[in-house]
């Protein structure tokens, strides 16, 4: 396979034209930009040693990065690695990919790019297997960058996720070393171990989110469901429209295992406060009875009332407001 590729490369002068690749657009993100430069430097070294094949291979990698493609550490199958080196290289590649999946390229772009370029260099030298000093140099560069990369990733990651809700969302992270505000979905900061240093907000790719948080995301509970039932003025009689909502409410309750049902009564501001305190409690009790009477087995209800204190629509005293005459039921 190596021979076929070498012949292919030799037939195409453009593939090892360093000046052309160097002039390509630098990739947008820090990790890719640094890796792009390091692949070109590796190509430079190989072409200086008249190793056209490997020079071209590093240039191909640089060009792919410039085109916005993701370039992984080289796969072991791509090269003819001496059998006694396979296990170590495979474990080293796995270690590097694990760190990249935990956000290495985002939070420590320089260390991650150096670790990947040094790994690919080590692969290339190991395949040649006749320059022990070069093999050792690449391997040591990989090990040093890897150690530093993993040390950085020991920090805590705080991220803000898409929550599908309207309104402004924000997370503020404060440490002894400063503060960072996250306000776009996917944005994250890394809090340095002990030091409390914070990275600027960086958007994590989906695969990094999945590696870090996938299992916790899968464990998210079914969200609570909230129903608002309205009443006729001054009474504990549900409006016809709200009565129609009751079957859906019961359905929600029976669909959950051991649910909790919060029932909170409210009134508008017509009438004395004390009267409304009593009325809001009566409304809540009516809804509780409505629920418990129709369910085959007991459920846990938590009943409270707010009188006229917690309106949906704020009004002056003695103003009738149908939207405030309500019971809010949360099924959770």
């Amino acid at each position, binding site marked *: 396979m190596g021979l076929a590729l070498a012949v292919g490369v030799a037939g195409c002068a453009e593939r090892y034209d360093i000046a052309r690749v160097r002039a390509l657009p630098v990739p947008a993100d820090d990790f890719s930009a640094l890796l792009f430069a390091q692949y070109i430097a590796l190509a430079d070294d190989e072409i200086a040693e008249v190793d056209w094949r490997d020079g071209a291979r590093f240039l191909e990698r640089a060009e792919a990065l410039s085109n916005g493609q993701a370039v992984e550490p080289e796969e072991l199958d791509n090269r003819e690695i001496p059998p006694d080196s396979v296990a170590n290289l495979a474990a080293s590649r796995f270690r590097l990919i694990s760190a990249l999946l935990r956000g290495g390229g985002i939070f420590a772009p320089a260390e991650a790019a150096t670790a990947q370029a040094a790994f690919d260099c080590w692969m290339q030298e190991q395949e040649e297997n006749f320059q022990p000093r070069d093999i050792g140099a690449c391997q040591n560069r990989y090990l040093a960058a890897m150690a530093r990369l993993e040390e950085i*990733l*020991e*920090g*805590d*990651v*705080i*991220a*803000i*996720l*898409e*929550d599908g*809700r309207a*309104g*402004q*969302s*924000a*997370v*503020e*992270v*404060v*440490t*002894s070393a400063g503060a960072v505000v996250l306000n776009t979905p996917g944005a*994250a900061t890394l*809090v*340095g*171990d*002990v*030091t*409390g240093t*914070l990275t600027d907000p960086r958007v994590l790719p989906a695969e990094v*989110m999945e590696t*870090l*948080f*996938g*299992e*916790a*995301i*899968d*464990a*998210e*509970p*079914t*969200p*609570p469901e*909230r129903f608002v039932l309205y009443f006729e003025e001054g009474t504990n009689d549900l409006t016809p429209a709200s009565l129609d909502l009751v079957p859906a409410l019961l359905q929600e309750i029976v669909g*959950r*295992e*051991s*649910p*909790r049902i*919060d029932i*909170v009564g409210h009134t508008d501001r017509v009438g004395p406060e004390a009267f409304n305190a009593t009325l809001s409690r009566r409304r809540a009790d009516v809804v509780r009875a409505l629920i418990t009477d129709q369910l085959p087995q007991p459920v*846990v209800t*938590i009943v*409270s009332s*707010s009188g006229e*204190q*917690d309106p949906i629509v704020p009004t002056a005293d003695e103003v009738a407001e149908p939207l405030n005459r309500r019971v809010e039921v*949360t099924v*959770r």
Partner: protein
Amino acid sequence: MKQAIARLALVAAALLCAGKVSFAQDLEVGVVRNCSGSVTIIRNGTEVVANVGQSIRGDDVIETGSDGTIGVILADASQISLGPQSEFHLEDFEFEPLQQRYSILARVLQGTLIYISGDIGRLSPENVRIEVPWGVVGLRGTRLAVSVEGP
């Protein structure tokens, strides 16, 4: 020997997380909605096996094993979920709308947490605080993810 057997029984029970318990307590501030694998709640120094429908109280510590995950909904309708190998301490929880007393203070000692804010986050966002080993996270109306490497 007896002690060893008792401990073994506890470990075995901890692995059976999907069982069903249903009871409410005055002290309840949340309820376990789902869990899988090994999940333990530590309350007043005593370990309790987590089950669907079980109460969560203020000051509870929740620990998940290497295969454990759990989802909880608190009384203000905020949601918590933990990934494997996590340790979470609900240090303080207060939700008393009539007295306008609101507080969530929680600490992630290790592992991963997703937190979706609820009524306290809407009514009094300054009283929502999630602590991590080297900092404090405050939030307003959002879905938060935290990953802590742990000691």
